[in-house]
């Protein structure tokens, strides 16, 4: 059974954090690109809550929600966006490089698909060292167009590695639609072609994501090999940055509105109501606590010092 309350808290927190990043972006204190996940929160929640802290996630340019759901530190993340010494990469990476090995966020990388073989390598290492861990590669619907996805998937399948490819299909690569980039076929075919267990599901339904992921994790831990999970979803804001951009003409307002009706938070709260797990007062208290946490984290980031050049070693 999916832990609805935990999923809801995670998603609400991510939603509020991203909204606050968007709101404050105009302050020009976060001086780096930001790729927000508003509308896609069910996937990071369902995926990461099915993992152990020692399992390793490799993410992309759109990494905030992955990091937070995986147990990431909000202070360190916001400090990184502010270019501060207290950031998870000391300000060196910015929003597209969120590394935090301690919580199992191995890397997030701005080069599309570059992290996919890294995650497979993490899975190989887990196998080689007989830990019972699982690695996850988050990929977009465009990342699977890069050849390196196929190279990594083939090797993962060949060696039955404990890796799960989570494909967040938000239909777009920047402003280019899926059907301008690939023939009209279900994305899961691209995993299946390598003999990988492949499934597609509604990526706005967090409990569904969680259940599918739990199954994939169990398979991986049992040595049954990789999975390729396609979760259909939609990004509400622009590709990069804090704004809505339905006006610029790459997608219709109708499409956007239809997806917005399928708000993952609304879907989950309905499920909670239906199963008697919804408590209005608790939700209110949760939201207030989250807002206080966010406020404190921004204060932390703003008050933290900028890093100083000093010694810039490139070797360990």
């Amino acid at each position, binding site marked *: 059974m999916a832990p609805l309350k935990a999923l809801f808290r995670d998603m609400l927190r991510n939603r509020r954090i991203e909204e606050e990043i968007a709101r404050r972006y105009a302050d020009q204190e976060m001086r780096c690109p930001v790729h927000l996940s508003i509308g896609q929160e069910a996937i990071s929640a369902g995926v990461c809550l099915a993992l152990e802290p020692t399992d390793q996630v490799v993410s992309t340019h759109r990494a905030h929600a992955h990091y937070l759901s995986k147990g990431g530190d909000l202070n360190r993340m916001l400090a990184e966006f502010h*270019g501060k010494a207290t950031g998870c990469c000391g300000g060196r990476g*910015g929003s597209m490089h969120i590394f935090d090995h301690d919580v199992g966020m191995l890397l997030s990388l701005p080069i599309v698909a570059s992290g996919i073989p890294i995650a497979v390598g993490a899975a190989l290492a887990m196998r080689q060292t007989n830990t019972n861990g699982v690695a996850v590669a988050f990929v977009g619907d465009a990342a699977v167009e890069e*050849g390196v996805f196929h190279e990594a998937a083939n090797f993962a399948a060949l060696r039955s590695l404990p890796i799960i490819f989570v494909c967040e299909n938000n239909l777009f690569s920047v*402003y280019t639609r899926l059907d301008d980039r690939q023939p009209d076929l279900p994305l899961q075919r691209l995993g299946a072609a390598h003999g990988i267990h492949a499934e597609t599901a509604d990526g706005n339904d967090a409990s569904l994501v969680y259940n599918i992921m739990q199954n994939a994790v169990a398979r991986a831990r049992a040595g049954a090999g990789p999975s390729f999970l396609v979760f259909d979803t939609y990004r509400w804001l622009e590709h990069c940055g804090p704004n809505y951009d339905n006006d610029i003409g790459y997608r219709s307002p109708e499409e956007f509105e239809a997806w917005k009706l399928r708000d993952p938070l609304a879907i989950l709260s309905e499920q909670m109501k239906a199963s008697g797990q919804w408590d209005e007062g608790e939700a209110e208290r949760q939201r207030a606590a989250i807002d206080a946490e966010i406020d404190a984290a921004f204060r932390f980031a703003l008050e933290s010092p900028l890093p100083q050049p000093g010694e810039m070693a490139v070797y360990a």
Partner: protein
Amino acid sequence: MPDTALPETRIISAASAILEATEQCLAADPRVYLMGEGVADPKGIFGTTLGLVERWGRDRVIEMPVAENGLTGVAIGSALMGQRPLMVHQRVDFALLALEQLLNNAAKTFFVSNGAHRVPLTVRMIIGRGWGQGPEHSQALEPIFAHVPGLKVVMPATPYDAKGMLIAAVDDDNPVIILEHRWIHYATGHVPAERYTVPLSGPQRVREGDDVTIVATSYNVLEAIEAADAMASCGIGAELFDLRVIRPLDIQPILDSVKRTGRLIIVDTGAKMYGIGAEIAARATEACFGHLRAAPRRLGLPDYPTPSSRGLIGTFYPNSSRLIETVGEIIPEAAERLIPALATVAEHRATVPVDIPHPAFRGPF
């Protein structure tokens, strides 16, 4: 951004100049087509391809899957058949995936085919900078392309050259890599409306002077102009070359200048170590040994990746101040006279944050 405008000219930005060049290439030759991630999207590669798909259709303006290596090969294959692809990467960094195709099939096929094949391919690659881009959206990597025989590698600095060299590249029967700095997109200057070419043949002298020869590429030319002008008002004459073409390298005008000034400084857009400047310094030393009054000096990026934070970026890039300081080091007797020049450029720099190309820039990319 220094403005290279003259009175009674047509002043547009380099971004507009590039768009105009592309439009004119598509209009002039049906073999030309444009391909890249984002060439047909509403942002149109920082505005440099806006409106083209509406005008020329999806067969001339090809929005591509995210697959740089494969689509570079596709472009090369079509070029071998006589087409003239113009490919765009929003960052040089993305082209790292396509180097096998570029350094082998594009660069070598004319030679290996004993002259039977041509690869009239042009690839624009944009060098990122600022707004916290970080280490993998800001690499210049000029030497990677310039080291390999068979490619032409150009780095325009001005709107005039950005247009004329792009058209010349598309006209060229050889593969041409254009390393196009994101910050020159904002530079404005005179650009004729008609279709014209700037030959891909070598450096251009943009300032005259007798005390030191300076060679810069791309955006650093704008920094160097600022430095040269500030130094000129202190009575120090810098002869400034916009290198423009990294390969083939027409070094002669630079050598002639160094023979006169006896001093040389090269400013690299990319990393200093094993950078472009090393070749130019070595060649100048070889050819002008008896004329040199000081060893050639190089500026460039230090020996670590580009950090994202503005706290770390202030000392990362060479700029007009460091250039003037370096002149002071190799002409010690001028050091004191250069103090007002340093003050002038520092004052101007203080008006714009260190991490943005233009005062109006507000992010997000």
